[in-house]
Structures are given as structure tokens and as C-alpha cells.
């Protein structure tokens, strides 16, 4: 093919950095907003932990917290971490950045829609930020916003804070709907020649499954949110029993979305692991197709598990066992993925740079999250541990593994592609070991607190006789969580230092197979010199027919390869 098309765009600063339609810039915008919120969410976690360990004392650097403010902190921490950190980073940043590059497209199918999506998200962030400063403070009805608590201002004392919270969520959903349309259409239609669905990197499969889950589950909640807003502002009573409404309706609409949402966050995180584990083992992923089928199975199952959040909500008790069954069975597809990851390690040639450490960390943490999920999924056990710190710890093990460990793995791995420079390994490894040990130090005590019966969202465990003996665990978790926050400093230094001073990265610094590595680092607007042609699947590491231990997807088949019996050569 001819030399690469020179992208001669003398575009203004605004078109390049602010109102860009380039998927990579949009990804970085999502990343920037997500990281900003991560800092806010982390500081909220600090306030929460302080209040729990030393109730009603002055938190250093902040001051008095108290129960009312604590409820707001709890609510906003959950909202921010799920909707404004995990989703923008895992889908907004990694999805936007990697999907076009990995499928071999020059940009998303609808670049303008993509820009609209990130700006809707920015607006939603602004609304959420404003909600902190309105009279009455931000939302304080829990991130699940159960009515009637959330349906009438008098119950929480929060008026506009909660209205803005609903508005911010509605905007955020709109933003990700637009993003989801782009993900799905791009993957379906803009694949490079030769890139069949079964040659897609698993990360792309995970991202599109997540997008489908999101798009098909969020609708009822949007309707439900409109109803909640009407209850608050107009005075209807959709969720207020005194006017003929039903509080449980919201819970169903919320969790009908809320549970698939868990997988919306989790799957892209698993996708990152599924790229990194085989890569640093220099081996094909074990069971590419079984993994895809089990992802789809998990996606389908995720629509029929939501009521396990409501076993004790006053829901018809006959519904509990069917939902308990589906919930526990959804462990099977995820078990398959975990087994496949472990099998990928077998017989590998494993090296341990920072991305691999974080990927293995994700695996370790996610395993605990998944295994403890069985306790929650079992309806009778849930009677005791529902709404306790056991649940809190469980979902931090699952979501933290995706939103934190996998995110870091992905950032360390794709940083050279995103910014054209390598990150520092020493700081990276320091960051990993600090994060890994401190994370467990924070959340293992929470399992024990949960078993001890400590309820979620209480501001002061010392008010309960049966929790007082457990207080040392709270203190321990708090100290560990402060250290965990401080443990992120090496990352921040590394990130900014590497942006400026990092070793300049070549096109394919890791010798990886997928298409993004055949584009320049960082790729220009339009990504590829010429649209690549794909000859094989993404995980042909250590293929017997080539001397190197890697075989890029777009390397034309050599004549010698045709004679070999390797499946990779069968284009």
C-alpha cells in the first residue's frame, strides 16, 4: 500500500483538545474526568472511614462529620465510584480508546455522537458537582436512592441536592447510551478486512457485551427516575403508599438495571485481564471461544438475577429461590473465565512487569469477590449478611478488582499507546505492592465486621453494644484505607512524570499482537497508516511456525507458514 495518509489537520486548540471528535482524545477526556472523580470518591472514603473508626471526632483536614453529613458522604461515594469513576474509565476511556484501534477502524462509527456523549457526561459531572453546594447539601438517600426516603425532601432534609442527583444520573445514562450505540455499531460495522467476530480481542467482546447489557437494562430505570423526580417535584405518588404508590416498584426498576450494571463494570475489567494475562504468559488465551460463549451466557443470566438484592425487601418470598438459583448459577460462566485465565498461565513463559502484576492482582481479588458472592446469593445466608459489611466488602472485592486493579493494569499497559511514553517500572511495582496489600488490609476486616453483624451505612458503630467489641477492626481498616489512599501517590507521580519524562515508546513496545500496536504511538487522528488487513486471531503467541514468540494479527502469512499445520496460518 502507499505511504500513510498525512493527516494535515491544522485544527484549532479547541477542536483538538476540547471539542474533539477523535475517539482517542475523547477517551482521554473520559479518563481525566474519571480520575478527577476518583480523587473525590477516595477523599469521601477517607471521611467515611474516619467517622467509623473515630465516631464524631474531627477528621484531620476536614473537621466534624456527624451522621447527617455521613449519609451524604456514603451516598455520593457510591454514586461517584460506580457512575463517575468506574464507568467513564472502564467504558468511556478504555472502550473509546481501544475499540476502534482493536477492530482496525479509523474512528468510531459516529464521531460527533461520541463528542456529544463525552460532553453530556461532562455536563452530568458538573450537575453532580453543583449538587454538593446547593442548600441542604448533596443526595443522602444511599446510592440506590430507595423511596420513600428519596421521594420526599422531608425524610432526608435534602431538597435540590437529590433532584440534581437524579438529573446527573439521567444525563450520565444518556451519555453512555450514546457511547454504547457507538461501541456496538463500530464493532459490528467498522471492523477491518479479515477481522471476523471470532478474531476480535476478548476485550472488545467484553466491551460490547457490557454495552448491550447497559443499553437493554437502563430504560426502565430512566422511566423510574422520571417518576421519582415527579414524586419529588410535582407531588405525584408513584412510590408513596399514602397516595397509592409502591416503594418496591423503584427497587425492581433500580435493580433491573443495577445488577446488569455490575457486569457493565466488571466485564471490561475482565477484558483487560484477558488481554494482559496471555500476553505476559506469551501464550494464547486458553479457550477463546468458550470464554466468548460464557460471556454471552453471563450477559443473558445477568438479566434474571436482580431480585437477589431484594430478598428481604418485602418482595414475595416465593421469588427468592428462583433468583437465588440464577444468582448462584451465574458463578458458572465466571468460573469458566477464571479457570481459563489460570489455564492460560499453565505452560507459559511468564514475566512480571507492572501490568501483569496488576492483572494477577485483579484475578486474586476478583476470585475472593466471586467466591464470597456465593454467600450473598444464597437466600437464607443473605437473611443474616444482607445490608452488613460483608456485602460491602464483597462488592468492593468484585468492583474494586475491575475498577481499580484492572484499570491500573490497563493504564500501565496501554499508557505507551495513549501517550507515547512508557511508565516507570520501579514506581509501578511499588504502587502495586502497596495497593495489593493495603486493599486486603482494608477489606478483610470488613468481612469480619459483616459477620459480626455490623450494618451498612451506620455512622457510629459505638452506638451498638454488640458492635463495640469489633471496633478495633474498624480502626484497623481505617488506618489501612488511609495508607491505601497514600499508596496511590507513586502512581500519580509516575503518571505525570512519565507523561513528560518517560522513555519514548515505539509502536509496539511490548511485542503484542493486537491491531492497536501496529498504529503509531500515540496514534494520530485516523489511527492507522493504512487500514490493516487481519489474518488471524489476537492471541497467537509462541506459535510453533514462527521463530519469534509473537505473531501480529495483521502480519501477512509467510509462504513457509502455509505449509505448517498451525491453525494460525489458516486465514
Amino acid at each position, binding site marked *: 500500500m502507499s505511504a500513510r495518509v498525512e493527516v*494535515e489537520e491544522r485544527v484549532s486548540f479547541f477542536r483538538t483538545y476540547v471539542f474533539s471528535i477523535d475517539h482517542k482524545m475523547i477517551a482521554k477526556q473520559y479518563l481525566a474526568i474519571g480520575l478527577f472523580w476518583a480523587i473525590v470518591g477516595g477523599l469521601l472514603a477517607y471521611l467515611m472511614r474516619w467517622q467509623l473508626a473515630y465516631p464524631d471526632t474531627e477528621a484531620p483536614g476536614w473537621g466534624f462529620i456527624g451522621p447527617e453529613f455521613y449519609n451524604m458522604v456514603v451516598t455520593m461515594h457510591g454514586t461517584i465510584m460506580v457512575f463517575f469513576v468506574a464507568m467513564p474509565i472502564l467504558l468511556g476511556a478504555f472502550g473509546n480508546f481501544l475499540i476502534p484501534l482493536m477492530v482496525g477502524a479509523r474512528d468510531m462509527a459516529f*464521531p460527533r455522537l461520541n463528542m456529544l456523549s463525552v460532553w453530556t457526561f461532562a455536563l452530568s459531572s458538573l450537575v453532580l458537582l453543583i449538587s454538593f453546594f446547593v442548600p441542604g447539601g448533596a443526595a443522602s438517600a444511599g446510592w440506590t436512592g430507595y423511596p420513600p426516603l428519596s421521594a420526599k425532601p422531608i425524610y432526608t432534609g435534602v431538597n435540590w441536592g437529590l433532584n440534581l442527583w437524579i438529573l446527573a444520573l439521567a444525563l450520565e445514562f444518556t451519555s453512555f447510551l450514546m457511547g454504547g450505540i457507538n461501541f456496538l455499531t463500530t464493532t459490528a460495522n467498522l*471492523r477491518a478486512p479479515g477481522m471476523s467476530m471470532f478474531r476480535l480481542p476478548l476485550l472488545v467482546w467484553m466491551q460490547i457485551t457490557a454495552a448491550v447489557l447497559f*443499553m437493554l437494562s437502563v430504560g426502565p430505570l430512566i*422511566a423510574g427516575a422520571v417518576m421519582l423526580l415527579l414524586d419529588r417535584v410535582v407531588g*405525584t405518588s408513584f412510590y408513596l403508599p399514602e*397516595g397509592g404508590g409502591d416503594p418496591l416498584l423503584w427497587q425492581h426498576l433500580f435493580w433491573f438495571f443495577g445488577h446488569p450494571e455490575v457486569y457493565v463494570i466488571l466485564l471490561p475489567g475482565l477484558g483487560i485481564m484477558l488481554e494482559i494475562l496471555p500476553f505476559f504468559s506469551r501464550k494464547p488465551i486458553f479457550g477463546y471461544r468458550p470464554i466468548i460463549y460464557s460471556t454471552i451466557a453471563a450477559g443473558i443470566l445477568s438479566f434474571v438475577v436482580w431480585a437477589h438484592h431484594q430478598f428481604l425487601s418485602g418482595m414475595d418470598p416465593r421469588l427468592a429461590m428462583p433468583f437465588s438459583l440464577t444468582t448462584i448459577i451465574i458463578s458458572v460462566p465466571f468460573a469458566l473465565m477464571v479457570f481459563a485465565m489460570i489455564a492460560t498461565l499453565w505452560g507459559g513463559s511468564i514475566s512480571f512487569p507492572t501490568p501483569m502484576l496488576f492483572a494477577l492482582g485483579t484475578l486474586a481479588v476478583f476470585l475472593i469477590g466471586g467466591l464470597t458472592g456465593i454467600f450473598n446469593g444464597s437466600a437464607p445466608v443473605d437473611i443474616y449478611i444482607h445490608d452488613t459489611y460483608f456485602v460491602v466488602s464483597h462488592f468492593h472485592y468484585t468492583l474494586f478488582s475491575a475498577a481499580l486493579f484492572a484499570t491500573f493494569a490497563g493504564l500501565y499497559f496501554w499508557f505507551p499507546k495513549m501517550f507515547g511514553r512508557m511508565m516507570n517500572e520501579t514506581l509501578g511495582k511499588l504502587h502495586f505492592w502497596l495497593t495489593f496489600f493495603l486493599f486486603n488490609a482494608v477489606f478483610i476486616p470488613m468481612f469480619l465486621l459483616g459477620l459480626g453483624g455490623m450494618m451498612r451505612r451506620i455512622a457510629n458503630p459505638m452506638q451498638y453494644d454488640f458492635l463495640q467489641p469489633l471496633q478495633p477492626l474498624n480502626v484497623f481498616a481505617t488506618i489501612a484505607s488511609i495508607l491505601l489512599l497514600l499508596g496511590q501517590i507513586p502512581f500519580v507521580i509516575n503518571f505525570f512524570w512519565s507523561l513528560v519524562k518517560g522513555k519514548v515508546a515505539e509502536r509496539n513496545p511490548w511485542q503484542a499482537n493486537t491491531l492497536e500496536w501496529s498504529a503509531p504511538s500515540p496514534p494520530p487522528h485516523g489511527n492507522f497508516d493504512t487500514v490493516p488487513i487481519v489474518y488471524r486471531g489476537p492471541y497467537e503467541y509462541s506459535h510453533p511456525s514462527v521463530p519469534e514468540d509473537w505473531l501480529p494479527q495483521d502480519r501477512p502469512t509467510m509462504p513457509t507458514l502455509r505449509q505448517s499445520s498451525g491453525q494460525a496460518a489458516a486465514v
Partner: protein
Amino acid sequence: MAETHVMATGVEIRTATGIPTGKMGLWWFLASEIVLFGGLIGAYIMSRLGSGGWSEMAAHLSVPIGTINTFVLLTSSLTMVLAFAAADKGDQKGIRTWLLLTVLLGLAFLIIKGFEWGSEIGAGFTPMAGSFWSFYYTMTGLHALHVLAGVVINLLLFLSALMGLLRGREHRVELAGLYWHFVDIVWIFLFPLLYLSWPKGGL
């Protein structure tokens, strides 16, 4: 340079599935809309089954006005699909005529609906007058917002057709049409759900 231009206008011809990219994107949008209205309608049906006395409230709705409005919307679907047929043939005049008619019918629907709301509120049936009315205004209101969006889209298409900007981009008529028919289908269900479900009282 040429390739960059193609990029910048966002019209990428390549499609691996054979489905035009715009159509696929629109269908994904409609898929999420189906779940949205499906969830809302489900909430309405189940709440209605779970509490009594909604039929007496529903009896205050005017079936003739509802029927006329349904007729208007069904007809607008016809004009919309005729605009698409004209677009398929490249018949610019046909596109303009049928699009204008669709816009007018959509506006007629909104005006009738507006008067209907006005008279209901005048009679004291505000959204706070009971659960039925809350659902009624939420469902018809959300639907009316969709109609309004459709009218705006069709109007923009009509204006660009007037200015000759639609030539070569006729597929946009098809996309607008898909959305418009979807809104029509929602109404096809809202009409019996709200207006006709009280034939013998009860429920």
C-alpha cells in the same frame, strides 16, 4: 487528504455486516427505547392490577378525542413511509410533500393532546389527582416529548430538502421514519392501555 475528509464528515462507507451504519446505530437506540417504554408500561399495568378504582378515573378520558388522535398518528406514519418511498426513488418533490404532511400531522397530534390535557386539568384531573393520572401524564407526556422530537427532526429534514441539502443523503428520511414509526407503535399500545381498558368497570 481525501481519506481525512471522509473521516471528518463522519461518513464512513465500510460496513462489515452489510447493514448501513446509521441504521444500525438507530436500531440500537430504538432497542433501548423499547425497554424504556416497556418498563414504564409494565409499571403501569402492574400498579393498575395491584390497586383498584383506576377504571373510574380512566372513564373520564375522552375516547373520541383519543381515537381521533390515534387516527392522526397512524396517518402520519403513512405519510412518513410514503416520504421514505419517495426518498428511495430520489423523488425530491415527493420527499418534501410527504415530510411536510408528516410534520403537520405530528403537530396536530400535539395540539389535540395539549387541548386534551388542558381540559382534563381544568376538570381537576391533575397529575396529583391519583395514581392513574400520575401514570397517564407521565406516559403520554414522555410519548409527547418523543413526538415533539420527531416533529423537530422531520422539520429539519423538510427544511434541508427544501434547500436541496438532502440530495445524496436520502437515507436520513428512512432513519427518521424508523424513529417515527416506533413512536407510533408506542401510541398504538398507550391508546388501549389508557383509554379503552375500562369497558365494564373493574380493574
